C-alpha cells in the first residue's frame, strides 16, 4: 500500500539560484533558509555541483541555454522559473527548459514553499510518465518477438491457442508477455527449431 506523505522532507535539500546578484536572490534565500534548505546562488553559470542539486531556480529574464550543463528540457531535478518580464519569447524559452513551477518577480514574503512542492510533484509526475512511456515503447518494439513466439508455439496450427499458451507461460514464469516471448524465441533458436525461416 502506498500513502502520500504530507510532511515534505525538505530539510538539508540543496537549492541553486541561478540569478544575477539582486534583491530577488535575497528574498528567495530568506524563504528557502526559513524552510530549512541549503541555498547557493550563482551567475552566469551553474557550477558542476549543481548536477547534484535538489532544486534549481533560474532567471527567465536573462537566462540562456549555455548556462545549464544539460540539454533544454532534460534537467535531472525540478526547476523553478523566475519570471519578471512576461515577454512571450522569454516565456517560450522558460518553457523549453520545462520549468516545473514558476515564481513571479519581484518575489515577496511568500511563494517559495508552494513553488517547491509544485515543482517537485510536477517533476516526479513527468519522470514517472517518461519512464512509463519508455516501458510502453519497449513493449511495442517487442511486437515482432511476440509474433515469432506465437508462431513457434503454434507450429503452424492454432494461433489463438498459441497466444493463450504464451500468456499462461508468462504468468507461471511471473514475467511479462514480451519477456516470455523473448525467452521462447531464444529457446527455439537454441533448439534450432523450425521457425528460422520466419526470422526477419
Amino acid at each position, binding site marked *: *500500500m502506498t*500513502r502520500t*506523505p*504530507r*510532511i*515534505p*522532507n*525538505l*530539510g*538539508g*535539500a540543496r537549492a541553486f539560484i541561478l540569478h544575477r546578484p539582486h534583491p530577488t536572490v535575497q528574498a528567495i534565500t*530568506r*524563504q528557502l*533558509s*526559513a*524552510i*530549512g*534548505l541549503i541555498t547557493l546562488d550563482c551567475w552566469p553559470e551553474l557550477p558542476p555541483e549543481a548536477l547534484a542539486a535538489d532544486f534549481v531556480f533560474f532567471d527567465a529574464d536573462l537566462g540562456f541555454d549555455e548556462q545549464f550543463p544539460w540539454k533544454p528540457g532534460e534537467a535531472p531535478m525540478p526547476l523553478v522559473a523566475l519570471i519578471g518580464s512576461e515577454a512571450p519569447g522569454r516565456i517560450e524559452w522558460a518553457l523549453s527548459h520545462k520549468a516545473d513551477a514558476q515564481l513571479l518577480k519581484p518575489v*515577496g*514574503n*511568500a511563494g517559495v*514553499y508552494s513553488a517547491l512542492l509544485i515543482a517537485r510533484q510536477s517533476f516526479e509526475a513527468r519522470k514517472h510518465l517518461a519512464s512509463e512511456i519508455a516501458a510502453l515503447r519497449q513493449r511495442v518494439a517487442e511486437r515482432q518477438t511476440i509474433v515469432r513466439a506465437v508462431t513457434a508455439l503454434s507450429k503452424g496450427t492454432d494461433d489463438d491457442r498459441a497466444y493463450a499458451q504464451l500468456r499462461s507461460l508468462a504468468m507461471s514464469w511471473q514475467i511479462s508477455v514480451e519477456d516470455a516471448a523473448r525467452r521462447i524465441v531464444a529457446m527455439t533458436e537454441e533448439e534450432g527449431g523450425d521457425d528460422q525461416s520466419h526470422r526477419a
Partner: protein
Amino acid sequence: MPRMPRPSGGGCGALLFLGICLKRRIEIGILYSRSGSYQLVSDACRMGAMRAIADINADRSSGIELVPVERDPQSNADRYATLCEDIFKSSSARHVVGCVTSWSRKETIPVLEKAGGMLWYACPYEGFEANEHVVYMHACPNQHLVPLLAHVVPRFGANGFLLGSNYIWGWEMNRVARDLIADAGGKVLGERYLRIGETDVSRLIGEIRATRPNFILNNLIGTSSYAFLAAYRDLGDEDPTFSPETCPVISCNLTEGELPAIGESGRGHLSVGPYFAPRPAAFGSSFEASAYASVQVMADVLSRDPDAGPAEFSRAFAERRFSTRLGPIAIDAHSQHATLPVIIGRIADGFFEVVSREDEVAPDPYLSRYDPARTFGRPRLRVVS
C-alpha cells in the same frame, strides 16, 4: 530595508531639555479581542502584553516608554485587518502584539506588508509559515505536536481520534497528525470538526465510544473544547476505557487560563507548551508569558535603537539572545520563530504537573528536519497482504 518612520509620539523634547522626561515614547499596537468564544486566551495574551508594558515603563533604566494603542476585534476574524490598519493610520505604531487564531493572523499579514509593520504573535500555531513581518513567539509543530505524539504513542498506543474547530488551526494540525500517526504505525479512527463556538458534541462522543482510540487529539478551541471535555468526562464515568489513564485527551494549546472553565473534566489530560505555571507563578499561562516576552524582546531592541526597522530587528535576531521571562531565548533570523522549551504537562488540581521537559528546542516551522525514525523509533514491520 528602510528604517521605520517613527515620530517621537510624545513630543517631550522640551521636557527632555528640562530633564523631566527622559524616556522616548514609542506607540505599540495591541490587537486582542475582549469578548467572544476564545476570550480567555485573548485576555491572557493581553494581560501579558500590558504587564510587560507597565514593567518596562516603570523601569527607570529603560530609555523608552511604551504607549499602547489598543483595538478590540471582538473575536470577529474580519475585523483584525481593518483594526490593524487603523492602528497604523492613526498612530505612529509599527509593532503590534496581537491575534490569537491563525485565521486572524493570516488576515492581518497583507496589512503588515503594506505598512511595513511587524506582528508579535504569542500563540501556538500550525506551522508552515515564515513571514518576515511576523515574529512567532510561541510554539510551532516541532515544539508542540511532534514531541507530544512522541510522548503519547509509546505510552497509550498509536491510534488516534482527531478533533478540531473548523478553521486553519484544526485542519492543518490534524493534517500533520495524520502523517505522524501513520509514521508511528497507527490509524486515524476519526476526524471531526465543529464550527467555532459549537457546543453540541454528542456525535463526537458517540463516534469516539464506537471507535475506541488510544488518544484524542483536541484542536477544538474555546467553548467547543470545554463542552467536549465535560462530555468526555461523562463518557469516562460510564466506561473506564475513556479515562485519562487509558485514553487521554491531548492538546497543543490548552493552558492554565482555561482550567477554570474546564474544571474537574480536565484532570489527567495532557497538553504541551513552552511554559506551565509553577506555584507560585510569575504568569498565569504560556500565552501570558509569551506575550510578555514578545514585548520584552521588542523593547530590548527598541531601547537600543528606537528607530529600528525590520532590517535592524533581523540583525538583532541573528546576533543576540534575549533574556525574557520565558528564560533566555533566541529568535531564528531566517524564520523569525523563537527557540523555546518544550514542556508536556498533565492537568492536576487547577494546574499542570510537568511530565517532561526539553530546553532550547530550535524552531522547525516547516518540519524540514522531522525524522520519523528518531521521533517514533524504528518502524514496526507489518504484514503486507
